[in-house]
């Protein structure tokens, strides 16, 4: 049989398993059918129920406008799949091409897509995390629980972490007229993602909306009462605050533990893959039947010096899933690279924040359009004289232009005037907190001397 014959046979009656039944998994499955894959398709997911959309969970669901079970993802087509839901995958055996489930079942595949996503990082003390009134927000159940707690009219909500999720939740609290304290280790909200200048604007915005914002502080302890209800939080500066609800919004942990012994290049940052979404093994060699998409995929982006980047963005999950699906059923010559420019959005304090590119890949930032005081502007980010990202506050319709500037490595700061240009257009240092990930220690060691025996071995990866 020729390669084309094998591919045709695979498309007709091959076996594809998708691990992860959320946005990336579902969109990949739909794309596989669109591509003409008629073989067997198995969807594995640890959550029960149909795939649902997560962005509304920290927004419309928390205001009570949309019920938590009202965010099911629209189905773009019938996917005719076997659904194995409610049981997580626990292992991947590349020698025999099986996915192992936590209940002991084994699911064979010819090709597999890994789209297991991210879970919320829990509070670091288990007994404190278990207190009544302490929440994380990642799943439908989480959002439903928090919505109920907010509806009960708490005296105060403490949000730990002022990233996007934390800031959105603080915004909802103010919208519901609930007193809220936000505790953030960095000098301002959103600083880790967007840098110090935007962080300052975000801080002003929070305070103008009545948020008790405390930056540069660490929450050290969550204290409960005798009934096990959260009552008080302690900060590292010795102060305390009384509240009935604490929302832990400290980012996510990529769901890769189940791949620990798989022999794939897995770490806290996700699973390394090529731009064709094929996973790399521990040695950095490309696999041919293991694909990755969504929040767990760590993919090189040529625009950003080929660095491996993993993104927890809705649009990235969709685009990567479609590329992965296409490549799963295509021959080498017809494969696509995933080369999209990252894009994400947030709504908080009445402002639509949208970003294109990778703002952390920058040394300077400048407001190029609009007015910061009006909360209506575009800021461009540059790295060594070229545009690498842009962020808009209530001005998203221009971002397509900045996407183009990024794609064409246009000069930074953008030289030509626009009608809506601020009087003082001076780039400032972007100022991100230090690269904490680099301090986490080696995850692998290299062994062997002869080129034929050189191998990578993992030492410790998950923390």
């Amino acid at each position: 049989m020729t390669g084309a014959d094998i591919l045709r046979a695979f498309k007709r009656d091959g076996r594809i398993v998708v691990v992860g039944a959320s946005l990336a998994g579902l969109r990949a499955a739909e794309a596989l059918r669109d591509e003409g894959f008629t073989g067997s398709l198995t969807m594995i997911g640890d959550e029960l129920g149909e795939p649902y959309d997560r962005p509304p969970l920290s927004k419309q669901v928390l205001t009570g406008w949309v019920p938590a079970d009202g965010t099911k993802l629209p189905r773009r087509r019938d996917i005719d799949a076997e659904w194995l839901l409610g049981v997580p995958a626990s292992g991947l055996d590349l020698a025999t091409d099986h996915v192992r489930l936590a209940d002991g079942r084994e699911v064979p595949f010819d090709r597999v897509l890994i789209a297991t996503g991210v879970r919320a990082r829990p509070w670091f003390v288990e007994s404190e995390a278990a207190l009544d009134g302490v929440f994380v927000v990642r799943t439908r159940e989480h959002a439903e629980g928090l919505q109920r707690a907010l509806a009960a009219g708490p005296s105060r909500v403490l949000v730990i972490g002022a990233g996007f999720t934390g800031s959105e939740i603080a915004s909802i609290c103010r919208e519901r007229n609930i007193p809220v304290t936000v505790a953030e280790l960095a000098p301002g909200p959103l600083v880790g993602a967007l840098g110090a200048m935007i962080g300052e604007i975000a801080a002003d915005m929070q305070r103008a909306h009545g948020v008790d914002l405390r930056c540069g502080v660490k929450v050290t302890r969550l204290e409960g009462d005798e009934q096990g209800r959260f009552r008080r939080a302690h900060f590292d500066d010795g102060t305390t605050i009384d509240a009935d609800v604490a929302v832990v919004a400290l980012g996510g942990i990529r769901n890769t533990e189940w791949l620990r012994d798989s022999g794939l290049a897995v770490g806290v940052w996700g699973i390394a893959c090529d731009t064709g979404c094929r996973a790399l093994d521990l040695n950095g060699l490309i696999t041919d039947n293991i694909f990755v998409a969504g929040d767990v995929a760590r993919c090189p982006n040529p625009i950003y010096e080929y660095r491996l980047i993993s993104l927890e963005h809705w649009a990235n999950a969709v685009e990567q899933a479609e590329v992965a699906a296409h490549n799963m059923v295509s021959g080498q010559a017809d494969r696509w690279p995933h080369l999209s420019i990252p894009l994400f959005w947030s709504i908080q304090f009445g402002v639509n924040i949208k970003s294109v590119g990778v703002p952390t890949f920058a040394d300077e930032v400048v407001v190029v359009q609009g007015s910061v005081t009006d909360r209506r502007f575009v800021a461009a980010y540059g790295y060594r004289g070229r545009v690498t990202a842009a962020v808009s506050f209530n001005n998203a319709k221009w971002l397509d232009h900045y996407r183009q500037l990024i794609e064409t490595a246009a000069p930074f700061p953008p030289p030509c005037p626009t009608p809506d240009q601020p009087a003082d257009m001076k780039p400032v240092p972007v100022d991100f907190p230090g690269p904490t990930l680099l301090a986490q220690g080696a995850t692998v060691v290299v062994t062997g001397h002869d080129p034929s025996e050189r191998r990578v071995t993992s030492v410790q990866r998950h923390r």
Partner: protein
Amino acid sequence: MATTKTPDTLLRILDYSTRADPYPLYAELRETPVALQGDGSYVISTYRELTDILHNPHLSSDVRNLSHPVEAFERSGTPAFINLDPPEHDRLRRMAMRHFGPPHTPGLVAGLEPDLTATVGSLIDDFVGKEQIDIVDDFAYPFPVTVICHLLGVPREDEPRFHLWVNAIIDSIDYNPKTDPKEKLTNGQQATTDLREFLGGLVEQRHGRPGDDLLSRLANDDGPDGRMTDDEIVATANLLLIAGHETTVNLIANGMLTLLRHPQVLRRLRDEPGLVVRLVEELLRYEPPVHIIPWRASYSDITVADTTIPKGSRIILMPASGSRDPNRFHDPDRFDPDRRDNQHLGFGSGIHLCFGGPLARRETQIALNELVRRLDRPRLVADPPPYRRSPVLRGPIHLHIEQGDG
């Protein structure tokens, strides 16, 4: 790159004789995506280049940024937001949108649905006993006019007067000093003055009298941006009134014409009314009501498709051509109501995206559904039908049909 092999393509498009089918000329135009014209203006006709420039902050909608102002553009009075750039554009559009759509006024269009259906129903009731129906005069014109008057709070009985004004204004939009009589321009300018005066009178009456119509709401607004001046309200109302008159009528008439040319789609729509949502999107791509955006200016040098358009140049955009670009749409000259990948330019793109788009969509959906449901074997009397003069807002001036055994 910018020099075109066929320098007169745009002139032939503007010529009335090509009105019934400008699409082959658009194809000719697309061979040079950014085409420098004899008068120094640039025509952009391909999809990617159009979407690029519509999102380019160096593109200005304010004719004061042209280095050689064109006579027709010299308008009197406060400009409406369609002719302004940020931040003024954003402020005025935001203040108007507060009373028209989400987040502050969600459900306005949905709330109008019973009225829309009733208006459509009564217009179709009047078809009874007529041997010939003019879909334009008997239906596609009176329907959106009734709706926009109701929405703004303009008395219906004043309609014949401003009908004349609006026609004169539209007529002057594509005024060409070389070929057109001067009256075409002066009539348009006089009509603008008269219409504004008339609207100014209405605004004056609304002060201190809160009501549900848009004029009352604008005249009594206490939103975060404060209140528009009376001149700004008049400019806004003037814009919405003209747009409400002259665009949906074309979309509905073009829609009925397209359905009559595709009888199998018409039959399908009758059996499957839900199809209308996608069908109207395809119409906006295939036979849109607005074909040309004749006036934009480069605020600074703009590079599009390797062509640098110098600061101060006039830029003419051809969205109807972009929506037929084979590099973006598969089989673009086929009317395919099942088309899924359909990000057409029927409502434009970027910050000037059609303000009334959600209303126009719903109006057209209801109109076409009811027409195909209630007309009995409708047939075109003449194909092509006679067209309006304007190459910008393109559509039939009459669309005569017969139905039943007539």
